[in-house]
């Protein structure tokens, strides 16, 4: 059901977007802006990751280890960058990369809210505005050049610059797209007095900032409107409150591509700004008195409303921070409760735990169970990689029929499953075997067998990945001979998987390790037969030279897959307890002895 929904939702979104692009060029520009912005976020995170485990962590740790420090960091960085949205977005990427914790992130956001008020001072006092989009192009050029360098740190800086460049460019395109909306907003039309006016203008402030993606732009609008006396001083204050709330949209947008930590920070940003806004609305009269007093104290003229607006902006943000600081930990806990971690796409070990490391036998059993789990996942991947169904392979159905039923090639991303399902588990197993330093030679030997079994799993998967490339082309090929050969390869692997499963499922009274010898013999025999048949196919011109080369390579991959599947089970079974297992190990045939049986087999066949 979930998968069907997913299949429907994505094409629907794409269609709606395509229709939107067709009917409105503004919409196209805005959407492109959002896309560029999100891409910038990804690049930024990539860049910060290059510095993890080194200097950046040290700097961040030192500058954010106490709440006052992270608040100061927020103030300083926002004053320099002149964009609280950008600082919050960067903080989200810090969190995403695991460089800082949520409490520190919240501190930076608090600081950014104070830092952003310096913009109002600049605009009101000097009519200045740092236009960040002008930096986008050089940043992209320098950034991309740096990305192509070999040094990890230069590459990291390159990604950061490119990320910032794309962020600026994205915001620029969003603003451009909204130009039409901006001209449509005529503030003088909505002048309303009293509390209704306050709420209305706060909402307009939120809307304008969401639309323009910048509280700075809204502030410029407010200050110019105020200077032209288009709006009243009270309404301008309400707009500033709204702009402060609306600016959180950038962080929310940035958190879309981040993990749950980023989302929690965006949540903190929203809660903080909404609370601050509410405080400002409720205590607006008291704030106005305070603004008048402060303005008179610092020498701002009574009618200089633009600078008074800057005082107000700073004051209410400062009050917000002072009110919220004691609740920082509560806020963090609340967000952790509300925004839960998404289910991890990476598989986690089920049986390995630190506690059992001290007990050799228990640890060994945990390792065996975890390896069995990885093997089950790996055989599923192998089956899907061969465009087959594991359940059907392991059923009692005739394998020829199973292969015939699945004659169509099905694309399957082995790399993705390997990355998320297998790699993490295999590394956890290897880590665990490294930690398990048993002095008992018996256990150490078994642990080393488990390690070998896991190595074989990885090799088998790598081989299936290689085999898959040509197999997808040839199993349903018009050339019946090549199709037949590739289906034979699939059948052979499937047959071994089925026999191995039966050997594994046999009760304790069986001789499991010894049963593998027959499989080894079949493997060698089939390889010889395949070589003979391949020569025949080439000689008779039934397959092209290209096909013959593919078949030759892929038969080697098939050999390796089967060999490793047997080895996995061999080492896994050998890691079992019991004196009989040792006896089986002694009786098991080595390669030479299998060769002798094979030679005898051939002599008997020739006599017939």
């Amino acid at each position, binding site marked *: 059901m979930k998968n069907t929904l997913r299949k429907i939702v994505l094409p629907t979104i794409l269609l709606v977007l395509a229709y939107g692009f067709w009917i409105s060029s503004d919409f196209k520009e805005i959407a492109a802006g959002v896309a560029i912005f999100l891409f910038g976020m990804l690049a930024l995170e990539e860049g910060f990751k290059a510095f993890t485990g080194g200097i950046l962590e040290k700097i961040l740790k030192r500058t954010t280890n106490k709440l006052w420090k992270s608040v100061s960091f927020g103030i300083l960085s926002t004053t320099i960058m002149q964009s609280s949205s950008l600082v919050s977005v960067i903080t989200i990427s810090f969190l995403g990369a695991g460089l800082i914790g949520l409490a520190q992130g919240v501190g930076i956001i608090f600081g950014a809210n104070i830092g952003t008020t310096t913009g109002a001072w600049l605009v009101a006092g000097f009519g200045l505005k740092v236009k960040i989009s002008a930096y986008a192009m050089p940043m992209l050029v320098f950034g991309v050049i740096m990305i192509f360098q070999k040094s990890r740190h230069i590459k990291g800086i390159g990604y950061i610059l490119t990320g910032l460049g794309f962020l600026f460019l994205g915001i620029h395109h969003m603003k451009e797209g909204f130009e039409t909306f901006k001209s449509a907003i005529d503030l003088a039309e909505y002048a309303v007095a009293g509390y209704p006016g306050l709420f209305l203008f706060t909402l307009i402030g939120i809307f304008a900032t969401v639309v323009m993606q910048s509280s700075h732009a809204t502030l410029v609008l407010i200050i110019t409107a105020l200077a032209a006396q288009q709006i009243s001083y009270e309404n301008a204050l309400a707009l500033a409150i709204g702009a402060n709330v609306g600016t959180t949209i950038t962080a929310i947008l940035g958190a879309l591509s981040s993990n749950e930590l980023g989302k929690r920070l965006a949540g903190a940003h929203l809660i903080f700004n909404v609370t601050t806004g509410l405080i400002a609305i409720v205590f607006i009269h008291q704030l106005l008195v305070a603004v008048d007093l402060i303005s008179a104290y610092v020498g701002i003229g009574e009618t200089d409303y633009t600078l008074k607006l800057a005082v107000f902006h700073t004051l209410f943000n400062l009050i917000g921070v002072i009110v919220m600081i004691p609740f920082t930990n509560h806020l963090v806990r609340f967000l952790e409760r509300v925004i839960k971690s998404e289910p991890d796409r990476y598989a986690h070990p089920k049986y390995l735990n630190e506690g059992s490391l001290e007990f050799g036998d228990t640890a060994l059993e945990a390792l065996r169970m975890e390896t069995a789990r990885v093997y089950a996942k790996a055989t599923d991947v192998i089956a899907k990689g061969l465009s087959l169904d594991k359940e059907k392979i392991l059923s009692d159905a005739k394998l020829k029929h199973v292969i015939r039923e699945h004659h169509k090639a099905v694309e399957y991303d082995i790399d993705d499953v390997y990355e998320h399902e297998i790699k993490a588990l295999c590394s956890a197993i290897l880590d665990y075997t490294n930690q398990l330093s048993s002095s008992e030679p018996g256990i150490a030997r078994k642990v080393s067998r488990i390690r070998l079994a896991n190595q074989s799993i990885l090799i088998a998967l790598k081989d299936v990945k290689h085999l898959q490339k040509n197999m997808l082309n040839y199993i349903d090929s018009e050339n019946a001979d090549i199709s037949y050969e590739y289906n034979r390869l699939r059948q052979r692997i499937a047959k071994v998987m089925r026999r191995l499963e039966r050997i594994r499922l046999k009760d304790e*009274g*069986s*001789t499991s390790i*010894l049963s593998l*010898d*027959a499989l080894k*013999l*079949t493997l060698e*025999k089939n390889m010889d037969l395949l070589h003979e048949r391949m020569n025949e196919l080439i000689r008779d011109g039934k397959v092209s030279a290209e096909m013959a080369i593919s078949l030759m390579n892929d038969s080697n991959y098939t050999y390796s897959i089967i060999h490793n599947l047997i080895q996995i089970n061999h080492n896994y079974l050998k890691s079992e307890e*019991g*004196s*009989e297992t*040792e*006896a*089986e190990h*002694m*009786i*098991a*045939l080595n390669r030479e*002895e*299998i060769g*002798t*049986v094979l030679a*005898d*087999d051939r002599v008997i066949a020739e006599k017939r």
Partner: protein
Amino acid sequence: MKFDNALKKKLLKKLKSYMNAEAEQLQQEDDGLSKVLKKLKKKEKHLKALIAAERDKDEREMLEQELNVVHSQRKKGITLLSSLRKKGDK
């Protein structure tokens, strides 16, 4: 220095088990091999019965192959067991 009887007995027991450690291990290996050989003999019989009943040529060939392997394993096991017993007799 005087040893009491209980301590003497304990020390003698330890000494005895130390002297017999190798013999005990040989016995364990002997037991393990014998058990596995019995199982292989049973498996051989079972395979022969399966071959006699199998009509599919490919399947029969595969079973015959497995029978050859089991036969070779038994031969190897018997050789190992006899050398183990000779070692024990010495």
